[in-house]
């Protein structure tokens, strides 16, 4: 039996289709998501299928329509918002952080905000500093939000179903470089629970935790080294909630940890993972954990500089080798 493959883009679209079909409360809001099919072609065809009462092409008013989505969610709808580039989350930040994240708590549990914000992050397209950032650490720092970062098509569909059915605001970080990556995706409805890391490859020598587009790069690096280093590769899938148990179990086995992410290393999510491992499995560590992540610079347009700003397979190989020989 041949397994059906879908691209990451198609997997997300299929999930949106299934949700729109299943629950009348689900609506989509965003710029150019109708006829145009979204800046990254994810929502193609949905307007035609579900009509303009479910799919809203918005003005360029991120603060306004995210705020609307918060209000709609508080009153019973389940909006899914599309922000064309995650860099533009800077604009609706107040509605995400001071409103969506806090409504349930600050009003004493009376109201809730079942809202998903889908947005692509990451570099690699030459769009430079204002269209290439990875800002997930900000949202992971904010109580009341959940933060999801699918690294492949299968996860994207299952995690997005979970996100849409969650009663809380979820920031769902897609990655531009993944949209065309295909993998097996069941054509049935399924959910992947939040807070369950994915052990993509088991190994005994080094634990590598990676997120987003870095997951496939780490797998590639691990493959390259497979003849003499046995790498365990873990994708947390969700940053909030974060499945530390799986990571710690792995480090207790390997004694060595590397965290790889695309976002800037300084004050990035790797620091939290390293800190928790150190706090909870200090004695298991046989050497200092390592972080490999984005350089502390805006993403430049030049292709080589852009590549150089972000961990590539070669650097990951080197990092694994270096920690393995300690």
């Amino acid at each position, binding site marked *: 039996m041949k397994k059906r493959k879908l691209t990451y883009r198609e997997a997300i679209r299929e999930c949106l289709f299934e949700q729109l079909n299943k629950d009348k409360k689900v609506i989509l809001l965003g710029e150019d998501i109708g006829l145009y099919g979204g800046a990254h072609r994810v929502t193609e065809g949905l307007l035609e299928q579900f009509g303009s009462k479910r799919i809203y092409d918005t003005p360029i008013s991120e603060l*306004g329509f995210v705020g609307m989505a918060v*209000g709609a969610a508080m009153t019973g709808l389940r909006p899914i918002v599309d922000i064309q580039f995650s860099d533009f989350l800077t604009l609706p930040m107040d509605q995400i952080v*001071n409103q969506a994240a806090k409504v*349930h708590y600050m009003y004493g549990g009376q*109201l809730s905000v079942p809202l998903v914000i889908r947005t692509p992050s990451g570099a690699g397209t030459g769009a430079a500093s204002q269209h290439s950032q990875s800002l997930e650490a900000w949202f992971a720092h904010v109580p009341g939000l959940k933060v999801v970062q699918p690294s492949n098509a299968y996860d994207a569909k299952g995690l997005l179903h979970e996100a849409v059915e969650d*009663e809380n605001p979820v920031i769902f970080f897609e990655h531009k470089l993944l949209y065309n990556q295909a993998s097996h995706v069941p054509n049935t409805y399924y959910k992947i629970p939040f807070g369950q890391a994915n052990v993509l490859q088991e190994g005994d020598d080094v634990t590598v935790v990676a997120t987003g587009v870095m997951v496939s790069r780490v797998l590639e690096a691990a493959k390259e080294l497979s003849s003499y280093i046995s790498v365990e590769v873990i994708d947390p899938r969700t940053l909030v909630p974060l499945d530390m148990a799986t990571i710690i179990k792995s480090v207790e086995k390997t004694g060595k940890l590397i965290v790889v992410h695309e976002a800037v290393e300084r004050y990035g999510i790797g620091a939290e993972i390293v800190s928790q491992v150190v706090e909870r499995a200090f004695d298991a560590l046989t050497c200092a954990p390592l972080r490999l992540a984005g350089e502390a610079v805006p993403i430049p347009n030049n292709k080589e500089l852009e590549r150089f700003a972000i961990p590539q397979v070669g650097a990951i190989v080197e990092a694994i080798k270096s920690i393995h020989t300690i």
Partner: protein
Amino acid sequence: MDINLALNMYEMMVKIRAFEEEVMRSSEAKLFHGTTHLYIGQEAVATGVCAHLSDEDYITSTHRSHGHAIAKGLDVDKVMAEIFGKRGGSCKGKGGSMHIADSKRGHLGSNGVVAANIPIAVGAALTLKLEEKSNVVVCFFGDGAINEGAFHEAMNLAAIWSLPIIFVCENNGYGMSTKISDVTNLEQLKEVAKSYNMTSYAVDGNDLEAVYVLSDQVISEVREGSGPVFIESRTYRYAGHSRSDQQVYRSKDEVIAWKDRDPIALFEEKLQGLGVSQIDLLKIRSKVKENVDQALVFAMNSEEPSLEELKTDLYAERVD
């Protein structure tokens, strides 16, 4: 105007006034933690507008929240207890003065971020429209909010999608210390609605009857699908902006002139014209005074939340 309705609205105004005066005293006596923004002087606005709303209609409100909450039907006990940060408060003491909500009364929350409640209100109106309800949303905000981008984006969204919402701008002349006329070139704030081709009105916000009558017409039209409407309600706050305000930015004379047009006093005159006696008014005022006294007692006696409650209500569970 129906006399019972008039008396009810009178009661609402004096209830808000008495409540706020009690909050002011309690604040000065440091009976609770945190700042407050009092609605004294503006009572006719919330009262005249909310008189037309049911529990199935929504409001969103601002930092100057108590009057809106009470006018929308929240229990004064729960509002006072919330200001006191007590478990018996409408938000279990987590919200405090600036974050009062009551989902059972259609109150979607007051908000500490100027203008942030405006897009939220528009979103609630989208829900109503999608569900083909004849309910409406009323969004209260101050003159200062019209310079926030959130206001403009939300006005436009409501307008292009013709949503059932009434924007009520309470123009009390100042945002904190800043004269609205120093930070806008508009002659009348209501003109801002033109950019959205939205119907707009200005009303004397100290004249309860005027607010009531205009809201009656506007809210019925919005219920019938007219699309959004903007109302500028001109009024004044008597107290300082918040607890710490020294009021250097306005003259005593200006305050006195506005107090001469006190919304409650003006409405008392009207009621007397309708044959209501001083005694009747006094009865209402003492009843209200009792309510507020009770609210204070309720708030003071309400339990403190337990320390475990720090971590509850963070994430919601889905219930289908």
